[in-house]
């Protein structure tokens, strides 16, 4: 009766669950099947407590995975009840996972890749950086955050290639937006591909910087998510398309979370955002 994707539902043992900053945690899970199947840029949905309270699983991008050790690592920020529950889970306890999910970043022989991460958006880039460096590719990383404490895992990127850091308050790296060193770098360098993850205004700024130079970029999007399975259509994001509206809603969980930057509609046309987006004339 069960089919292949049922294997995406799996129990994982917590190896370690420790704070990185006041409200940010790093969790390591023994999850061999997931580690074996994972690709950089994919995500996993975690049931933070047994049963259906909280109702939904929580989606987290894969920060790192180690096929040999059968482990995955996630970084999460405590934002509500679900992540607070997760922060309270102890090593040795089990968590139900659903994954790997989503498309992940895709590569086609690029030799130089620039990574751009903002805040929690830094997390999926480490898996991509490690994969690319392992393939002998040149990796250049640009990370930005509110303060130095949130430049998560910055030291791990430093081993893999040039690293540029920025913070809003200047507590670490340059006091600037992450797009400043990126734009400066692009004056004299041309990566084959840019991968970006972070808050929407940052992604939008990255898209402007790279699109104007004709450099292909993939962005990993975030959206309030329901099932993670592509069924509920909750995590919709407008992507350019040949429709009367000029866009179509794609599912971040199933069609993404990674999209080409030039296809993402970062802001909807004004009239469709008011009154529930119902553009049908009433009859």
């Amino acid at each position: 009766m069960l089919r292949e994707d049922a294997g995406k539902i799996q129990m994982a043992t917590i190896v370690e669950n420790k704070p990185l900053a006041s409200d940010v945690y790093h969790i390591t899970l023994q999850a061999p099947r997931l580690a074996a199947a994972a690709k950089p840029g994919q995500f996993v949905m975690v049931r933070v407590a047994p049963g259906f309270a909280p109702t939904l699983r929580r989606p987290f991008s894969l920060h790192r995975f180690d096929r040999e050790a059968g482990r995955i690592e996630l970084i999460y920020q405590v934002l509500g009840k679900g992540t607070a529950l997760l922060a309270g889970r102890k090593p040795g306890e089990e968590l139900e996972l659903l994954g790997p999910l989503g498309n992940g970043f895709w590569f086609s022989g690029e030799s130089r890749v620039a990574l751009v991460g903002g805040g929690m958006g830094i997390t999926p880039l480490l898996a991509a950086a490690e994969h690319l460096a392992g393939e002998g590719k040149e990796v250049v990383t640009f990370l930005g955050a509110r303060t130095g404490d949130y430049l998560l895992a910055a030291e791990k990127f430093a081993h893999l290639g040039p690293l540029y850091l920025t913070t809003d308050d200047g507590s670490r790296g340059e006091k600037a937006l992450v797009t400043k060193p990126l734009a400066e770098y692009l004056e004299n360098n041309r990566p084959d591909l840019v991968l970006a993850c972070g808050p929407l205004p940052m992604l939008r700024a990255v898209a402007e910087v790279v699109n104007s130079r004709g450099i292909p970029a993939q962005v990993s999007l975030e959206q309030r998510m329901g099932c993670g399975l592509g069924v509920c259509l909750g995590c919709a994001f407008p992507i350019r398309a040949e429709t009367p509206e000029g866009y179509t809603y794609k599912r971040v969980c199933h069609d993404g979370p990674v999209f080409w930057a030039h296809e993402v509609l970062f802001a909807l046309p004004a009239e469709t955002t008011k009154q529930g987006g119902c553009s049908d004339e009433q009859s």
Partner: protein
Amino acid sequence: MNKVNLQVQLGPLKLKNPILTMSGTFGFGRELAKFYDLSVLGGIVVKPVTPKPRPGNPPPRIAETAGGILNAIGIQNPGVDAAIAEELPALQYLRRQGTLVVGSVSGHSFADYTFVTKKLSDSGLVDAIELNISCPNLKGGGLAFGTDPDTVKEVVSRVRAVCGVPLIVKLSPNVTDITKIALSAAAGGADILSLINTLTGMAIDARTRRPILKNITGGLSGPAVKPVALRMVYEVARKVDLPLIGIGGIISGTDAAEFLLAGASAVGVGTANLLDPLAAPRILAELEEYLVQQQVESVEEIVGGLIID
């Protein structure tokens, strides 16, 4: 384990078991068919369709609440023509295995409802049609049709006239007396009633002082609505002589049994599909276990079997 007869008669429809997956929580079956063999189900109700493609509402569309979720998807769908050309043909193998494929119809006007119903019915690709006159996320449509008894009778009778397959009418809980709406649907010619659709609700982020949903309000579903749904199924079963599909927060076999006891002949699994991709077959197995424990030979023995001392 003794075998229990799981077949149920739902008005004109024969189901191999009483578990249906509900519209909007199952897409067109493609995604969950990768998790399990859908032919174990009694039937599937596919995504509601409208005359033309609809992009759906701007995000955020979903919010978690205590024991439930709130959604305002806005009937995003490829339109009836694409559903007939691209989605429903891929589900015909289920019908050959005795699993019902039910189309779902949404719209903004009488003309929309009859147009889509006729197309789906004439396609020969569905065993039945569910009329969604209770979606809370369509402005000037959906719910507006489902909350006034006279309008309900009118839309159901117009749709009935063009519908060549059994007609299921999905009722809204967002009314003062659901039995009045149920009676109107029956008078209009419904063969089966399904209830309940989502309860209109709202979620606010106090930190940002903003509604979580872009649509501001949405439809509440999940375990939180089960007591309301059970009460409504119980009330309608006593007043209306039509078979019922009980829906609302079913996530276990005993939840399903409770709806059957309240008077439903079959049950709809909705939100649970989103929480657990294997929910529907698990609920079926748990229901079967319950029936064995209750020492009944057929699931139909417990339909409406609520004991009031």
